[in-house]
């Protein structure tokens, strides 16, 4: 099968390409010079606004993994990539005569403020969204499902990093939150102790996607690449991280840095208001980063997992430990690691 993969240089793109072997993969990249090299992958220069028409005759499947994931951007900015970009790719797909599959990589965040058991099903009614990113991805799902193409959706949980070595290609909202947490600068987290933090590894995300592609086509199907009931509760995760950080950080080891309190929305809002009034620049950054990620923890839910159940899932403790180790060792990807980083080579 010949596959067009977008988002190759993102957090999970390389691993997806690896999992798609021995299929032929065209990886759409903006910058040929700096893109990773991988056997079986042909780099194709382009982007969602300038798609490579010369491969349309060959493409049998499209895996659309590219997205703008900066939670703090405005809805208009995010729509440009996450909605308009999808529309452009769907148009492109309609002109691929051999196309059999279109897989949209989405996110469990499209559920917004929904709580409780969450089925692998479309969300026809827009929930209340925690941030514009969620909304843009929900709008993208609607486009894909209405496209009259053999389209399916795989919603990824929070991709923490590699379960092999903990590496993270592009630190995102989770990793920013971990940074402030490690530095002892997060006094409280909005949520409940029972809220699940649905962490998955890069490899797990890619394996579920590859499994979805290998399985029989089911246009309109939605799959969750999620740890579901195996994911840690927020209280458990914070306790684990506090224990782990205490091996690396004097403040955590002595108990001077405390595990953040888990608080309700009103309390966190009061804290944010106080920070904003103070004008403290550092805490504004902490709150900005927290605002983009942490509020989703106020909505405890458990994602249904049908296909993902058949994929081996690393224990969340192992994953959290490896990712946290890698982040600490590389100072959040600011300096080279002494252990081989997860890469395409």
């Amino acid at each position: 099968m010949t596959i067009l993969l977008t988002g190759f240089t993102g957090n999970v793109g390389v691993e997806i390409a690896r999992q798609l072997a021995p299929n032929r993969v065209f990886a759409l990249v903006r910058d040929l010079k700096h893109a990773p090299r991988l056997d079986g992958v042909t780099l194709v220069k382009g982007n969602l606004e300038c798609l490579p028409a010369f491969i349309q005759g060959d493409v049998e499947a499209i895996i659309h993994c590219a997205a703008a994931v900066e939670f703090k951007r405005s809805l208009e900015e995010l729509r440009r990539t996450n909605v308009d970009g999808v529309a452009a790719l769907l148009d492109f797909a309609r002109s691929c005569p051999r196309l059999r599959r279109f897989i949209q990589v989405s996110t469990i965040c499209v559920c917004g403020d929904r709580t409780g058991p969450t089925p692998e099903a479309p969300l026809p009614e827009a929930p209340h969204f925690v941030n514009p990113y969620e909304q843009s991805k929900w709008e993208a799902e609607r486009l894909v499902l209405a496209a009259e193409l053999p389209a399916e959706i795989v919603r990824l949980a929070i991709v923490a990093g590699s379960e092999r070595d903990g590496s993270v290609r592009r630190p995102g909202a989770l990793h920013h939150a971990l940074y402030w947490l490690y530095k002892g600068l997060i006094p409280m987290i909005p949520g409940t102790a029972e809220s699940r933090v649905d962490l998955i590894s890069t490899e797990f995300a890619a394996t579920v996607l590859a499994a979805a592609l290998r399985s029989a086509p089911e246009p309109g199907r939605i799959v969750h690449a999620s740890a579901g009931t195996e994911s840690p509760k927020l209280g458990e995760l914070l306790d684990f991280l506090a224990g782990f950080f205490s091996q690396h950080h004097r403040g955590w080891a002595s108990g001077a840095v405390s595990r953040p309190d888990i608080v309700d929305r009103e309390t966190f809002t009061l804290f944010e208001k106080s920070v904003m009034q103070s004008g403290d620049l550092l805490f504004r950054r902490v709150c900005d980063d927290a605002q983009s990620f942490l509020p989703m923890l106020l909505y405890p839910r458990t994602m249904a997992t049908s296909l993902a159940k058949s994929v081996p899932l690393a224990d969340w403790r192992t994953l959290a430990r490896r990712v946290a180790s890698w982040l600490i060792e590389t100072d959040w990807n600011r300096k080279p690691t002494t252990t081989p980083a997860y890469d395409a080579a």
Partner: protein
Amino acid sequence: MKRIGLRGLGTALPEQFTPLAELPLLSSPDRLAAFGFGGAWIAEDPASLAVRAARNALADARIAPSEVDVLFAAGALPQAHQRASEQPTGGVLDAFCYSASWLQEELGLDRAAVCGIAQQGCAGMFSALRAARGLLAAEPELNHALCVGADVLPPGACREILYNVISDAACAVVVSREKARHRWAGFHQISKGYYWDVPAKQSEIIAAYFPTARSVIMELLRRENLSATDVDLVVPTGVNATSWPILMRLCGIPEERLYRPRRSFGHTIAADSFLLLEEARASGCLAPGMRLLLFAYGFGSSWCALLLEVAEEEVA
């Protein structure tokens, strides 16, 4: 031992009040006004404030200076513990002129043993009270300890510390074995030396403030077999007014149980809790049997929580 408590309170504020607009500050006056600050009380010398507060406390406790067994003098700043010699030599001897000893002499506390309490920041008075209560419990022949806290910032000093406007003030408390107005019901302190370097760690200190404050209060309540709703009144300090509702929510103490000050005096380092306790008493907010929670944070860093119970009996 269960009758030990606070028998007399006294406070002293300077005569000069300076509005925010005229103070040396880091933030804009508007920003600090949003945190509940109107200005600062400014004094030149902590000694006169300390004497005034101590005399007020002795009068409130209705005891004579000669009845005081121990004097604890608390001060957050190093200069609070020194008194200029009347005949300075210019040598090292000048450094041994202590303000606590001067205070003993000035007040005529002729029988009192003297002790200084330092390096506790704004929690200095709490440490003094704890030491006083512990001493009375340990030595049955002692009846009255006088704790005095006084701090005055150096002339021209910036009046803003971590978004708090600092006033000069003094407070004094007589801790006695009998006839306490507020019985000692419990105390807990957490000290974290990790935060000793205040300028270097100020952001981390701000972040540690809430979780540690909650921990110290909840541990105190746990030790006393009480729940958060057993606290009848929280007597705040003068720090950033927006922080108290957050702390109340973190602890699960109903917000309406936070004492709402009738006057604003900023944050006075050591005296806030006692200025407000005195005010609450004077305004008739306190009733016998009420449990009062006092909390203070001091650079160092120490988080202190003190639980008092309003006594049935009045001072004879």
